């Protein structure tokens, strides 16, 4: 490693240093790195330290390192990611389209040829695509490497700085003045005034450095640590232990296994309640009229959580122990053992049971001779009725539809129940065949003496609950907090330095701050007030 020894103060600097770490003298051959031009002010970013070791570029590792260390690369990555993120919002992502449609069809139907292209390019799942994740990962890498590469030399440069600075360094600061015939008392006076304004004073051979707010220089790096913690939190969402997001439907009166809990937890839906705003209440009348119908005020599931106890083999009915009982309302989940169940959907009035009656076919008043009730989730095979009738369920279609001329069911849920009944009239051994359902009452042979008709039915509601467990939230929140601390640290404080340099006949005064130049000027004004020291001139303003 070629070290650079400062001609002026003799300090040994690392290769690639632009301004001597100790005295600030510009190192002649390296001025191009920061774009410093003769006769112009010095670029003070990173204190002219030897950052990003641009100088080592030998191995592949060094090349990769230097690629990610570049701010230009980092900004480019962020811009690309922003554009990609925007593209992802042109059409809805796949998770927001209806769950029971074919995505290929849906995008083509809804958004035409553009939708079709969108789907075929995979943009309907953009945020979980491999290339998007790699972009985010590259931004993360860039943040880490660029921070290391700047923080280390900057800290070193600030640690090495000496109160005694080279003239060239002072003259090329933005704030600079030269004063003749200054007494030692005046210098002492300025020093004390600066101290009063909470500057930290260090001295060397009559040279004075007044410094404050150095910690604000670490703001960006603290901020970057926050971002990295945030990204780590997001990454942990891939660990099933840390993050669960699932869904369960439970019918009133039923108990269902809670998914993703290793069959450990069960949830019972005691009751689902949907309430609407009172139409007779004056306060709501206007809004309800505007809406053109009832406005729901509450969706609620009264639920019981059970935990399986003992060693039951899957499929066996486990012994359940009550863990918790409570109401689940929108945004008011029921929490148990790290899990939370949220109210997120419902279906009203699914059939629970149906009561049929038997009457004579030619009886116009349809007077019931006998009736029977079928539990739709657990129908019996055979019903013995009053008056000697006997009914056998031959076929049951919970969600009836016609499939190519034959009756069939679309699902196991009794949403449109229909039956083929064998009706045995009293004393008869051959049955009459009847088909009965909602709004259907068909006599298969056309010669039946008795008809089966729907007399009554009972319904129940189904609740849809979202299961969540998110242990990554505290990590993500911590990342956000660190990020904000970094922002505050860098924004509300400034790193200010004032140098006082005795020359043959007077003093040179120079000052630098990383932001808020107005503030430092006011502090210098206060410090020199009543002394012979000249106020600093803003050399940048003069040139413009």
């Amino acid at each position, binding site marked *: *490693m070629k070290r650079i020894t400062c001609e002026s103060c003799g300090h040994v600097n690392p290769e690639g240093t632009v301004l001597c770490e100790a005295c600030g003298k510009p190192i002649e051959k390296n001025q191009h790195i920061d774009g410093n031009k003769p006769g112009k002010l010095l670029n003070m970013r990173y204190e002219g330290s030897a950052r990003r*070791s641009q100088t*080592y570029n030998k*191995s592949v*590792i*060094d090349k*990769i*390192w230097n690629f990610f260390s570049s701010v230009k690369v980092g900004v480019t990555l962020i811009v690309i990611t922003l554009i990609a993120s925007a593209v992802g919002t042109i059409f809805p992502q796949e998770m927001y389209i209806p769950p029971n449609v074919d995505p290929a069809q849906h995008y083509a139907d809804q958004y035409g040829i553009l939708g079709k292209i969108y789907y075929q390019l995979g943009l309907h799942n953009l945020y*979980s695509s*491999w290339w998007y*994740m*790699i972009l985010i*990962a590259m931004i*993360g*890498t860039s943040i*880490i*490497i660029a921070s*290391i590469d700047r923080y280390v030399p900057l800290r070193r440069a600030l640690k090495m700085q000496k109160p005694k600075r080279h003239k060239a360094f002072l003259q090329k600061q933005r704030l600079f003045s030269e004063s003749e015939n200054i007494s030692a008392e005046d210098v002492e006076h300025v020093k004390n005034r600066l101290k009063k304004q909470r500057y930290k004073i260090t001295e060397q051979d009559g040279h004075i450095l007044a410094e404050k707010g150095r910690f604000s220089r670490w703001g960006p790096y603290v901020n970057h640590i926050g971002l990295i913690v945030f990204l*780590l939190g997001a*990454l942990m969402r*891939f*660990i099933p232990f840390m993050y669960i997001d699932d869904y369960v439907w439970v019918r009133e009166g039923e*108990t*269902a*296994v809670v*998914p993703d809990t290793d*069959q450990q937890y069960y949830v019972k839906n005691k009751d689902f309640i949907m309430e609407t705003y009172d139409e007779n209440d004056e306060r709501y009348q206007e809004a309800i009229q505007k809406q053109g119908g009832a406005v729901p005020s509450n969706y609620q599931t009264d639920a019981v959580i059970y935990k399986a106890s003992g060693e039951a*083999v*899957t*499929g*066996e009915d486990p012994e359940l122990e009550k863990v918790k009982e409570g109401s689940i309302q929108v945004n008011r989940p029921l929490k148990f053992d790290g899990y939370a169940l949220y109210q997120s959907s419902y279906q009203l009035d699914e059939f629970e049971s149906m009561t049929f009656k038997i009457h004579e076919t030619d009886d116009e008043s349809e007077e019931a001779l006998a009736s029977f009730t079928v539990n739709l*989730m*657990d*129908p*019996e*095979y055979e019903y013995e009725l009053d008056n000697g009738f006997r009914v056998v*369920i*031959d*076929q*049951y279609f*919970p*969600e009836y539809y016609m*499939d190519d001329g034959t009756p*069939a*069911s*679309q*699902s*196991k*849920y*009794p949403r449109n129940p229909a039956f083929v009944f064998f009706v045995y009239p009293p004393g008869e051994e051959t049955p009459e065949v009847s088909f009965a359902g909602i709004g259907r009452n068909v006599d298969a042979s056309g010669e039946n003496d008795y008809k089966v008709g729907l007399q009554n039915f009972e319904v129940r509601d189904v609740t849809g609950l979202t299961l969540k467990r998110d242990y990554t939230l505290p990590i993500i929140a911590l990342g956000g907090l660190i990020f904000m601390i970094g922002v505050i640290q860098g924004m509300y404080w400034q790193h200010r330095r004032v140098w006082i340099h005795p020359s043959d006949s007077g003093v040179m005064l120079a000052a630098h701050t990383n932001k808020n130049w107005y503030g430092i000027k006011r502090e210098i004004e206060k410090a020199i007030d009543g002394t012979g020291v000249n106020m600093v001139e803003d050399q940048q303003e003069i040139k413009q």
Partner: protein
Amino acid sequence: MLSKVEEAKKQKQRKKNLRLLFRSSILLVLLAAVVFALVSNFTKDKTVIGVGTEAPNFKLERLNGEGGEVSLDDLKGKGVMLNFWATYCGPCKEEMPYMESLYPEYKEKGVEILAVSMDSNDLVVNRFVDKYELSFPIVRDNGGQVLELYDVGELPSTLFINADGEVVEKVSGELTLDRLEGYLKKIEPQ
């Protein structure tokens, strides 16, 4: 003088090695994080129980034949074709007769067929079994626990499990007679 130059050289080499080690390890950690994220993302929707994994045990009530309880562990030593189906699933109805036609032959050879129904009640299953005259064991997964355990998303789905209890093949969707026979041959005990 010479020793000083050499010492400087040595120190330079040491620093260089340290730098390489530092940079390599940071890049390696970052790379590992990226690989982890990508792999997890792509396996997210994949099933937990797949080819090569051990088929987890379950126990369900048998609806047809002699009744009683059927558990997978009781079938150890036999090849097991585990079929997830339902009466309301069209393709399931298509493949059931194929299964029935091959069952007697493969039962002799030590292969058991176990069909797990997803229906909500016994009546529809029994009527179906009577209609298609199915003789292999039929069980019903009332709460969908076994479906959850095996992380099956589509009906029909079939797992072929060898005599050691290891999943040899997993098929989503309908099977043809030829394919079915091919898979059954694979799980015949030796």
